[in-house]
């Protein structure tokens, strides 16, 4: 089966200028990321804030241009931003943001917001539009009498349902959800996540689910990619990565997730400062906080390599002796 969307060595660097006359320093938000999502699959992307998750999400949708690397959707390269080909492709890929109130135009009713993608891509004849809107609202669990409401008249969960209904209106094949439930109450979070999963299964939508919340990702993702300072440090199926994490960063993340009914055991507490994307450590970016860092980690960037069973990890300790031997030989 061919991938629905593929990313190949994506790079996005922001120039950040400090102060009026400060020199601009590059922030490598996304630093050579490759990944693929199969039709109907959910890829979870986890990482701390500043790890480049959201930038990656926007790049996958073609909202942020790649400085190098390429995004392919259904096998063909992403058209240039703003071109008619790019716009036409919007119907197939949609975005759900963290803050639903900000993602909705406060002047428009819920029905008007949901109908906009239908109008843009002329997907439904005018006379069937009302029925389609009603269908979408029912699908996300909104009552039909809420069609005439304005965003501020709905609760947070209802707003996010409206955003999701709008995203589904054009029957997309890919949904990028950027922290879609982080702004919601925990009880509402579960409802929205379950609803997303149902809708995904029913409609065969592929999903990129970006979150810093591992509990939520564990619930919804088939596969998980862990990001650290603009790079993927580990990728594996959701079951495996939460049961047997390989990368020390992933281990620390997974150990921090409480499991109901059990005391929190074997917790790895990370030392050192949270990462600053503008000041990337040499070698493995994680080495200042890594409990198993060795000399090589300070000088050599570990490549993301296969570690068996369809898993990949970028760590000198995990990759085993072959990596370090190779590097040593090169240095000799």
């Amino acid at each position: 089966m061919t991938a629905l969307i593929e990313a190949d060595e994506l790079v996005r660097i922001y120039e950040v200028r400090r102060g009026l006359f400060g020199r601009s320093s590059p922030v490598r938000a996304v630093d050579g990321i490759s990944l693929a999502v199969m039709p109907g699959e959910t890829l979870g992307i986890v990482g701390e804030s500043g790890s480049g998750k959201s930038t990656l999400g926007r790049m996958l949708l073609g909202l942020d241009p790649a400085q190098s690397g390429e995004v392919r959707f259904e096998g063909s390269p992403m058209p240039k931003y703003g071109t008619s080909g790019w716009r036409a492709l919007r119907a197939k890929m949609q975005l759900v943001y963290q803050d639903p109130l900000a993602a909705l135009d406060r002047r428009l009713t819920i029905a008007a917001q949901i109908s906009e993608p239908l109008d843009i891509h002329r997907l439904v004849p005018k006379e069937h539009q009302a029925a389609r809107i009603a269908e979408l609202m029912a699908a996300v669990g909104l009552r039909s009498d809420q069609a005439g409401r304005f965003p501020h008249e709905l609760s947070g969960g209802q707003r996010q349902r409206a955003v999701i209904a709008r995203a589904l209106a054009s029957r997309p094949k890919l949904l990028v959800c950027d922290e879609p439930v982080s702004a919601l109450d925990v009880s509402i979070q579960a409802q929205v996540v379950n609803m997303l999963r149902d809708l995904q299964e029913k409609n065969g939508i592929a999903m990129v689910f970006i979150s810093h919340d591992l509990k939520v990702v564990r619930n919804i993702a088939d596969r998980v990619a862990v990001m650290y300072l603009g790079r993927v440090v580990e990728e594996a199926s959701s079951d495996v990565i939460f049961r047997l994490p390989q990368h020390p960063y992933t281990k620390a993340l997974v150990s921090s997730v409480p499991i109901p009914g059990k005391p929190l055991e074997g917790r790895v507490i990370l030392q050192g400062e949270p990462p600053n994307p503008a000041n990337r450590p040499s070698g493995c970016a994680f080495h200042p906080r890594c409990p198993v860092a060795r000399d090589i980690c300070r000088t050599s960037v570990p490549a993301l390599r296969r570690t068996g069973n369809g898993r990949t990890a970028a760590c000198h300790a995990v990759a085993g002796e072959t990596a370090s031997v190779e590097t040593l030989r090169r240095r000799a």
Partner: protein
Amino acid sequence: MIRFVFVRLMRAVITILAVVTFAFVVLRMSGDPAQVMLGPDVPQDAVDAFRKTWGLDQPIWIQYLAYIKSIFTGDFGVSMRDKASALRLVLERVPATLQLTLPALILKLMIGIPAGVYAALHRQSFADRGVITLAIIGFTVPSFVMGLVLVLIFSVLLGVLPSGGQDTWMHGILPTITMSIGGIGILARFSRSAMIEVLGQPYIRTASAKGLKWRDVIWSHALPNAAVPIVTIVGFMVGSLIAGAVVVESIFSWPGIGRLLIVSVSNRDLAVVQCILLIIAAAMVMSNLVVDLLYGWLDPRLRSHAGH
């Protein structure tokens, strides 16, 4: 809705009443009309007779009550100078003032808002910086300086435009431009910052992620949402259509309300001054009321608050 309008109207009446009261007290405290009108060397009985005629010999609160009573019956008093109805004197001058302020308002809207929006859409570009710089110059240079500079350039040096008077349409050009420059600067700044804020909102990014053309994103999502702060400023400008020309009318000897106000204040022509202030306050308050109603139309959040 009706209740909302009613409450606002009552508040408007109270505001106008406060302005009128303030003007009434201050005018009577700050100088004696009899002295100003009759001159310094008149005999005391002439002064007394003048005071008796105009009721100035009464205690101030009796004068005040009589004044308020006559306002509510539509009588705005009589000019002490030429015994004509104060209201008529003032209304006669309104068209001349509007001849300057209306074209100035149109210039402000047609240049200020597009310039600000353009700057916001081309942020950090040469055009953006140019707009900001000109806008700052526009609203920091006072109109009396701007007016004199324009007179110096176009009347004295180039000799292409008249420097004062109201004889032809050419005479209106310099005062209109002088009056509009500050407003253009303010509107450009406000439109720019309002647009920049709106353009950073997720629903704008979502709109283009939905496949909407950038043009349509601007017209159907960005501009309507940026309109709220812009409408506030425009409301003030509309409210000051009548009052906004005091300085400029004096520079260009334009016979509008502003000139009448200055002349009447220096003559202590109480009824005329009070009448002008009342009209200015009423115009300001009315335009604020219209702005409040517009908010509800522009922003449904405010609409439901107004409804309750």
